[in-house]
């Protein structure tokens, strides 16, 4: 039976061209029908160097379906190398060439001797959504570009966290995580955003360990790096937002990296003092219980649903209603993620639903008793239903129409404060 999926919150795997876009001076070469890049790009900014409208594309048509599109792919790569000044060329395949069986890997291997690296990631839509596509890109970089090395740099840590562009705070969050790791004496290495790019990709292999902050995205990548490059990993499933989670996070990372405990505690104390100073200044606002909603729901991918639920419960003392994970989390990770939602302070547990269909999400929001107006943190799709319920809405997940984020972050101590500002800005507007 065919099913309808109402307003899903992800794109096809080819949407991972945005992951390539986040790597400075890297360009995706699309082996797909015309228009894919246009449809998959959205308003959350481009790389600043290449626009999705000029991504080289084979624009395959009926002829290529019948006779194969490998010749066209070859000439597209060849000419891209000639006319586009980039550091890394990533060939991505769409649905059609993969269905009809074009051997894109074979074509790409013909460019092994090219001056610039050309790699290939299969990102056909039927292989999964853009979260999986993101993993495919990282896998391609590890498999086809990164070389194993025995020279390890002391204290160097690769950070893997958000999916660029799918997550509107990806840039700010990565920078904030880097800052935190630096403060406890480690050297962070990320590959996305300003002045990272290929030179940081080159450093991946010499890292002491991989730090993965995500409930499930990229678990498979860090496992691959452990096997292929011999880099151990720390999988930390909760994105640390606010004082409680961030301090816990720093302690765990510090312990794993063998950082002096006192140093970590000093950093934590300094941050917490300032954090609680800010909160105390507005204690009247926070204690005025008419301002904020009693219960909240987060409608987002596993990363934000978990991170924000923990933050709002542990730091702000709100009560979680049902939480919705919309990223089509692979089944093997669901149980562990559900368990994480039970590890909240004050003996609270949150019920979590894995649901990709927005209609069903909205029906459940409508039928839940929030003991007053709901607070919904979600995608733009959830704005209308929240307004119907006279609730407070904040756009924190894809699709994003209500917010422009240049380098804001919601991770760490600072990020927690930003999120409080945003939530209370919305909540207090009700009284104006």
């Amino acid at each position, binding site marked *: 039976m065919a099913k309808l999926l109402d307003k899903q919150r992800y794109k096809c795997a080819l949407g991972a061209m945005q992951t390539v876009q986040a790597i400075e001076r890297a360009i995706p070469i699309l082996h797909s029908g015309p228009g894919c890049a246009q449809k998959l790009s959205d308003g959350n900014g481009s790389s600043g160097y290449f626009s999705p409208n000029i991504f080289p594309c084979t624009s395959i048509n009926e002829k290529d379906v019948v006779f194969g599109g490998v010749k066209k792919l070859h000439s597209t790569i060849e000419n891209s190398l000639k006319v586009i000044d980039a550091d890394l060329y990533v060939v991505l395949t769409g649905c059609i060439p993969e269905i*009809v069986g074009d051997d894109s890997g074979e074509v790409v291997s013909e460019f092994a001797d090219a001056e610039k690296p050309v790699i290939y990631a299969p990102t056909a839509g039927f292989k999964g959504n853009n979260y999986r596509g993101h993993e495919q890109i990282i896998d391609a970089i590890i498999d086809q570009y990164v070389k194993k090395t025995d020279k390890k740099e002391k204290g160097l840590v690769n950070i893997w966290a958000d999916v660029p562009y799918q997550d509107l705070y990806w840039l700010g969050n990565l920078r904030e995580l880097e800052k935190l790791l630096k403060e406890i004496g480690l050297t962070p290495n990320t590959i996305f955003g300003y002045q990272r790019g290929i030179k940081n990709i080159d450093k991946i292999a010499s890292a002491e360990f991989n730090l993965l902050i995500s409930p499930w995205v990229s678990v498979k990548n860090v496992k691959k790096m452990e096997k292929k490059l011999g880099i151990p990993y720390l999988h930390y499933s909760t994105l640390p937002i606010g004082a409680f989670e961030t301090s816990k996070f720093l302690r765990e990372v510090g312990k794993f990296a063998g950082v002096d405990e006192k140093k970590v505690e000093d950093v934590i104390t300094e941050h917490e003092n300032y954090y609680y100073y800010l909160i105390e200044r507005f204690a009247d606002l926070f204690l005025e219980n008419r301002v904020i909603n009693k219960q909240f729901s987060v409608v987002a991918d596993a990363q934000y649903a978990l991170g924000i639920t923990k933050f709002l419960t542990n730091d702000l003392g709100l009560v979680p209603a049902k939480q919705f994970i919309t990223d089509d989390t692979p089944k093997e990770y669901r149980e562990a993620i559900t368990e994480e939602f039970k590890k909240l302070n004050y003996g609270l547990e949150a019920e979590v639903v894995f649901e990709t269909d927005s209609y069903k999400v909205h029906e459940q929001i409508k039928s839940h008793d929030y003991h007053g107006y709901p607070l919904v943190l979600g995608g733009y799709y959830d704005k209308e239903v929240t307004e119907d319920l006279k609730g407070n809405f904040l756009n924190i997940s894809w699709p994003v129409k209500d917010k422009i984020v240049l380098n804001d972050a919601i991770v760490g101590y600072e990020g927690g404060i930003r999120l409080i500002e945003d939530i209370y800005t919305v909540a207090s507007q009700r009284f104006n």
Partner: protein
Amino acid sequence: MSYLIAVATSDAKVVDLGFGAAKGFHIYEVEGTEYKEKEYREFAEEEISSDVQSGCGGQTSGCGDTNNCGSPSGGCGDGSQDGCGGTGGHGGCGAGSQSGCGGSDGALRKVNLIADCRSLVCKKIGFQAQKQLEKKAIAGFDVECSVDEALTKIATYFDKIDNHVSLRRG
């Protein structure tokens, strides 16, 4: 149900002629994935060129006179030297085809002669011809390979499409 495929080839072995250069087409009849040659359709050279002439510059088209052409009321493009004009419904002037005037008209005459075919295979297809083929829902393939290879691939493709079979290879 069987259908026809037109192939531009000089020797019935290799697809070696462009659409414009072809004097005629070998027509193959396809049933499922089996095909056999049905006939050879040839166009009289003069038929094409005379058609072009009548579509262009002729007084009947109301535009041959360069004085009329280009005047606001002339309705005939930009008063080009060709003085060529719309032959009624056939889509305007010139449009950069080799023959100067006639534009899509020349291609159209040829396309009309294979209008009962489902597909056309040749070495190269020009822009005008491609558009005219699309209008008649004829799938044009510009490839360089043997006639057998082209027909096998196209027949397999249509067979799958018609029977709602996945195009997945292997």
